[in-house]
């Protein structure tokens, strides 16, 4: 069998190879030149989405279209193929494929404790293994007949193929899915430069996080710019050279998720590159943002399968977001069409290619027009590759890449019979190509029977009527036919017929059960009147019902519409101003245009929505100085001791449910920090909790940028004794800091032609007082050391965060000018906090230090007002000063006190209305507003809960019905979000997931 197959391939190659002229490859045969002229006649030819020729002809010669039109003269040397009743469509182009180049991928790097600091790639390449700009897919491409067959079977004729490995992935190559030699099927050697955020098979530590990957890519752009001038110090860097060489190619970025698409586009904007974005299938959830990128997209058809949600215990942990996405994912391409965003479609991301066409039909039922669908598979990808002159439609001179189908290609039961690639025929499905249905007259042993062939064109049913109706089995293999007849009346009458089906006549030998044999013949007497395939023109059934709607964010507690600013008048309430005015009894506060417009008695505004604050308390919104919510990927870029180039701003995730949960605890702003894994961590981002808005809109505008530093046990990897990363002691930490700032000073002295170094840029900003530090710190020795370093380099450590031994050196902190952001009462969870005391905040405050209380914890963040109250309990702090520790004080240390943090006319209306004394355990926030917009309303929250319940119920029932209806399902997948903390392993038990994992670990101990 194998030998036969090999032989067939050889024969085929010999035939195909000689279609063109001279070539270098020697022949192991005599020359066998052929024109490969084929005429397709009587076909419905779809030239492109705009043009269809009825009863058309197309002549193909030497792999290209020679002529196309109606009633063309047929060349004498043509092989004629009658396509009556059939449809010819350009075959599809998939520009996101790894056909023929897919390599074994190692599992993504070695994490933060691997200790591989530099690349181990051989050759004069760049420093980081994940930057593989030098990779050239055309040099490793190998025709893969099995894979090609699979792709052809779903209508694809050409692909842009690249090795999907690394952050910069080098170039992709365009190949057809023919079986000829690599050099024949390759249409373009280098057709794209490809990128992603995934480090792939790199075993190097850096980067460990998404923000690290983004930083690496940005630095790579800068390095390449610098390398253009051939800097002497760098020598030969083939990675940077290749990156430069590839710049003129279409640049394709694998975002694979709506937010990552935007992140990629932002990097592109920074460096003047418009990426083609390969999406993840959830882009419809933020279509306006997608539109704003101006990018063309490549969209997958990876619609999720229904989950098995019969068991309510399993369905309980499936999020509404996932349920909704299951229902709405087919809307993705239609949303792009509606928004008029150009896009191509890809089969990438499908578990099984066989779901490509069915999913495409789902997308069409969900509103994607067939015209745009066809463009997305032909013209658009060809145009993106700048190859529309060669592929993507059926026109004279273009490659003969087309499909012959039984019906319009997207029709429900349309069969792809043949997928022609470069003028060569590849059969996808032969059954039904020749319509044999009709009425035949069968003569056997001098008797004549009426034989009816009807039903499915590919698998017709047979009926044989003579004296009586015979029970008949029909088996067709290519042109061979076997019939087995049994009389229903005469059980002894059994005949086996075998023969060959000609176009009109069938004939062969019959063997009777008696042992006798004879000839038989069947002749077609007429067509079946009903033989016209009913599915040919029938439109697929009515559009699917998708009742779900996009909410912002997409999922539970999302807004149907983004909330808007109102004029609001809060009447007769107790106002905790967090200003010198202190507490104002029975006072009104007017909010207009997002600002506090007036504070006083008997205020009025005819347009205002009146909120009765009687018996309630109004305070400034809470600001959490130390938070790790709303981040995509790891909050630590842990691979090096200095990663000041990593930026939280790149990885803000506006979908985090903890944003909403914290609004319910009165929080309006959070300072999102890098973790504490290394001495100089990443740049931070201050956000306002504008639930439902996108990442950019969450960011606090015009703020002084900050950066996270860390000292002590976490930095020296105390809990991972095998860590190879310098430093391992507080002594080493001090040197890391001194070295970093020394390098930054030297960097600043370099001339204009210097290589822009993102790490040193951030450090220079610190030296120039343009960026400010918040430093994770615990014990007095390290606090003191950092103050001394800062003094030496002439800057101020803006904030010490955690700072649990701050009370021991509060005087020094005050003298240096630092702020302190601490826990109320945490202690004893690690060695460096055994001297922590709940009076720390008070003692620092008494020394004149501006003190805030923070959470570093998504659970505690909801109760920061109560944490503030603990200073009243443990140290008799004044109540107003206690509340200030979560309002004006953090605003002050974040340099935004001029805009938020207190109740003062002109400031942003970032407010909380409490049901009770704001420091009391019995106080609930009833309203939380940011910029005068009510993002949390306890009454509205009740309604949201009801809506969540009814929407969940509907979708779970729909999934159950889908399963009953025979749809494939996957096991229910709980959607526990990973919570980020700075203190790893120390916040256990705050969530069910923590508890489950804890219990799972302990019950598995042996």
């Amino acid at each position, binding site marked *: 069998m194998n030998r036969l197959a090999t032989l067939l391939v050889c024969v085929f190659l010999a035939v195909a190879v000689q279609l063109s002229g001279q070539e270098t490859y020697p022949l192991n045969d005599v020359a066998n030149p052929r024109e490969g002229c084929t005429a397709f006649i009587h076909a419905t030819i779809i030239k492109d989405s705009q043009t269809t020729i009825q009863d058309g002809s197309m002549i193909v010669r030497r792999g290209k279209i020679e002529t196309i039109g109606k009633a063309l003269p047929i060349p004498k040397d043509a092989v004629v193929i009658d396509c009556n009743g059939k449809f010819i469509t350009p075959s599809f182009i998939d520009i996101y494929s790894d056909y023929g180049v897919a390599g074994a991928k190692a599992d993504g790097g070695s994490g933060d404790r691997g200790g591989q600091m530099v690349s181990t790639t051989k050759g004069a390449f760049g420093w980081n293994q994940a930057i593989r700009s030098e990779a050239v897919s055309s040099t490793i491409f190998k025709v893969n007949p099995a894979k090609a067959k699979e792709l052809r079977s779903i209508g694809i004729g050409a692909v842009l193929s690249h090795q999907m490995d690394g952050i910069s992935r080098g170039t992709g190559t365009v190949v057809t899915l023919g079986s000829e030699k690599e050099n024949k099927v390759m249409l373009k050697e280098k057709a794209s430069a490809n990128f992603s955020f995934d480090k792939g098979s790199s075993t190097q530590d850096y980067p460990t996080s998404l923000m690290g990957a983004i930083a690496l890519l940005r630095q790579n752009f800068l390095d390449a710019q610098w390398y253009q001038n051939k800097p002497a110090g760098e020598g030969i860097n083939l990675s940077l050279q290749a990156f430069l060489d590839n710049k003129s190619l279409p640049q394709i970025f694998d975002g694979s998720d709506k937010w990552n698409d935007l992140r990629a586009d932002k990097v592109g904007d920074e460096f003047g590159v418009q990426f083609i974005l390969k999406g993840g299938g959830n882009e419809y959830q933020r279509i306006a943002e997608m539109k704003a990128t101006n990018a063309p997209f490549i969209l997958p058809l990876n619609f999720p399968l229904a989950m098995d949600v019969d068991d309510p215990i*399993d369905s309980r942990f499936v999020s509404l977001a996932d349920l909704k996405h299951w229902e709405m994912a087919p809307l993705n391409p239609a949303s792009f069409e509606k928004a008029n965003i150009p896009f191509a479609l890809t089969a990438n991301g499908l578990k099984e290619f066989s779901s490509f066409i069915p999913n495409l039909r789902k997308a069409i039922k969900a509103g994607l027009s067939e015209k745009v669908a066809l463009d997305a598979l032909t013209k658009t990808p060809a145009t993106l590759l700048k190859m529309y002159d060669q592929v993507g439609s059926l026109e004279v001179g273009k490659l003969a890449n087309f499909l012959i189908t039984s019906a319009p290609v997207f029709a429900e039961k349309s069969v792809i019979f043949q997928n022609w690639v470069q003028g060569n025929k590849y059969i996808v499905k032969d059954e039904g190509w020749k319509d044999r249905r009709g009425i035949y007259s069968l003569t056997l042993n001098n008797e004549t029977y009426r034989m009816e062939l009807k039903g499915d064109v590919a698998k017709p049913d047979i009926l044989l009527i003579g004296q009586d109706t015979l029970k008949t089995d029909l088996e067709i293999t290519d042109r061979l036919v076997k019939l087995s007849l049994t009389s229903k009346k005469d059980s002894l009458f059994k005949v086996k017929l075998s023969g060959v089906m000609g176009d009109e006549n069938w004939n062969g030998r019959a063997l009777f059960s008696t042992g006798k044999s004879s000839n038989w013949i069947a002749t077609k007497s007429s067509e079946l009147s009903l033989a016209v395939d009913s599915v040919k023109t029938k439109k697929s059934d009515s559009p699917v019902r998708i009742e779900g709607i996009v909410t912002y964010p997409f999922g539970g507690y999302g807004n149907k519409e983004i909330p808007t600013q109102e004029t609001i008048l809060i009447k007769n309430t107790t106002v905790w101003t967090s200003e010198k005015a202190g507490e104002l009894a029975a006072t009104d506060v007017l909010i207009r245009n997002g600002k506090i417009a007036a504070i006083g008695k008997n205020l009025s505004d005819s347009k205002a929505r009146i909120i009765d604050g009687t018996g309630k308390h109004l305070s400034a919104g809470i600001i959490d100085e130390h938070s790790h919510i709303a981040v995509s990927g790891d909050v630590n870029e842990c691979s090096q001791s200095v990663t000041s180039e990593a930026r939280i701003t790149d990885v803000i995730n506006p979908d985090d449910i903890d944003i909403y949960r914290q609004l319910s605890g009165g929080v309006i702003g959070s300072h999102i920090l890098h973790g504490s894994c290394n001495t100089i961590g990443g740049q931070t981002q201050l956000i306002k909790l504008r639930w439902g808005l996108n990442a950019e809109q969450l960011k606090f505008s015009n703020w002084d940028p900050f950066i996270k530093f860390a000292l002590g046990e976490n930095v020296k990897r105390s809990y991972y004794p095998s860590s190879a990363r310098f430093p391992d002691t507080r002594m080493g930490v001090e040197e890391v800091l001194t070295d970093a700032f020394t390098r930054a000073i030297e960097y600043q002295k370099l001339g204009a032609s210097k290589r822009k170094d993102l790490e040193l840029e951030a450090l220079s900003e610190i030296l120039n007082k343009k960026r400010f530090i918040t430093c994770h710190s615990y014990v007095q020795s390290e606090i003191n050391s950092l103050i001394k370093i800062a003094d030496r380099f002439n800057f101020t450590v803006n904030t010490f965060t955690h700072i649990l031994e701050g009370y*021991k050196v509060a005087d020094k902190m005050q003298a240096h000018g630092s702020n302190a952001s601490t826990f109320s009462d945490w202690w004893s969870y690690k060695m460096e906090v055994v001297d922590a005391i*709940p009076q720390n905040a008070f003692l620092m405050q008494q020394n004149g230090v501006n003190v805030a209380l923070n959470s570093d914890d998504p659970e505690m963040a909801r109760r920061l007002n109560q944490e503030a*109250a603990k200073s009243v309990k443990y140290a008799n702090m004044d109540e107003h000063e206690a509340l200030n520790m979560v309002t004006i004080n953090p605003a002050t240390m974040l340099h935004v006190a001029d805009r938020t943090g207190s109740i003062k006319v002109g400031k942003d209306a970032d407010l909380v209305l409490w049901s009770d004394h704001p*420091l009391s355990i*019995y106080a609930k926030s009833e309203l939380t507003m940011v910029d005068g917009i009510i993002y949390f309303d306890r009454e509205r929250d009740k309604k949201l809960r009801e809506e969540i319940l009814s929407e*969940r119920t509907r979708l779970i029932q729909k999934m159950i019905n889908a399963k009953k209806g025979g749809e494939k399902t996957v096991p229910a997948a709980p959607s526990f979000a990973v919570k980020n903390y700075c203190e790893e392993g120390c916040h256990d*038990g705050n969530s069910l997931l923590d508890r489950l994992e804890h*219990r799972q670990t302990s019950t598995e101990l042996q």
Partner: protein
Amino acid sequence: MRKIFFNLLLISFLSANAQENMHPAAAQKNPVLIKNGTIHLGNGQVIENGYIFFDKGKIVAVGSGNYDASPVTSIVDAHGKQLYPGLIAASTNLGLIEVGAVRSTGDYAELGTMNPNIHSLVAYNTDSKVINTIRSNGVLLAHIVPSGGLLSGTSSVVQLDAWNWEDAAYKTDNGIHLNIPVLLNRPGQPDQVKSGLEKMEEVRNFFREAKGYNNEPVHAKVNLKFEAVKGLFRGTQSLFVHCDLVREMMIAIDFAREFGFKLVLVGGSDSWMIPEVLKENNVAVILSQPHSLPSAEDDDIDQPYKTGAVLQKAGVLFTICQDQSFGYWRQRDLPFQAGTMATYGLTKEEALSTLTLNAAKILGIDHLTGTLEAGKDANIVLSEGDLLDMKSSKVTKAFIQGREINLDNKQSQLFEKYKTKYSIK
């Protein structure tokens, strides 16, 4: 991560000493009368302008108005103040760990999966510096619980003012602890439900054999593990089953039914979904910290705050705990966690009862403590204001078995030290 966290940790640590100038109080010598206070009995009732008279460690009388005591009585005027029964931490590793990240300070989880025979009491460190910070917020008793494995071991209740663990023992070996394997499948993991149920079958087999063993008084060889669970079969011990999900709780109930054990669920995050089932089966719950995030993304944002109210309404006997890795120093937040439940559906007295009478019942010590009633131990907390609200909680006196305990702790001593440095009064 957590495994590495603890297992790789090889830092040496000098074991903690008690605050050297503090010592446990001597036995009560003179009778004490506390008068004019607002007395929260711990069973839901409140006596305004009340008195408590106690002697020889026991409460003699509680009432309103005046009490005629003997002349040698010490008298405490509690005018304007609040009196409570000593609060009970119902599930904690207090005294079994000093510094979470320092492995050598941990004595809470033994190797192996079936350790009913290990006893928390013998490792309970009365000199832990954490203990004094707990009781100064009103928590005077604690149920010391081992963790890890399937059968973690045997727990005991201690009082928090003792020279050594023998002194501390309040109720010895009152419970056996079982962790149910997580019965929830997650993508990319092997079938946890199947393997979990298989492990539970091992546990069942263990108890089937233990039952047989304990039916037979004479043994050729002693089996310590079977001996350790004798009390469960005799009804002198409770089985504390640590689990959270509905499926796990149902398995726990079925399990306890097979052997006729007294059942207490610890954790019970999803207990709000099956309060009637818990009530019908007479199952008590030690609910994991109300200060938790909602279990599922779409859960009510305040679900953990209000689960207590759901159980209360259904008549389920329950208390709360702060367990897991911060389960030692955070015991001092228990009153505030109860306060949160009072914000979300319980009355303040119901919330208080969870930490007093309910906890005492669940631990089998309600004949000794849990309420301020005559005949019970004089475990009493005196606070300037509402004990469940951090804004007003200020414990100024506390008595364990009638002994007035020192409310100082390492932290307040450091506070004093640095007040001196900075000349703060």
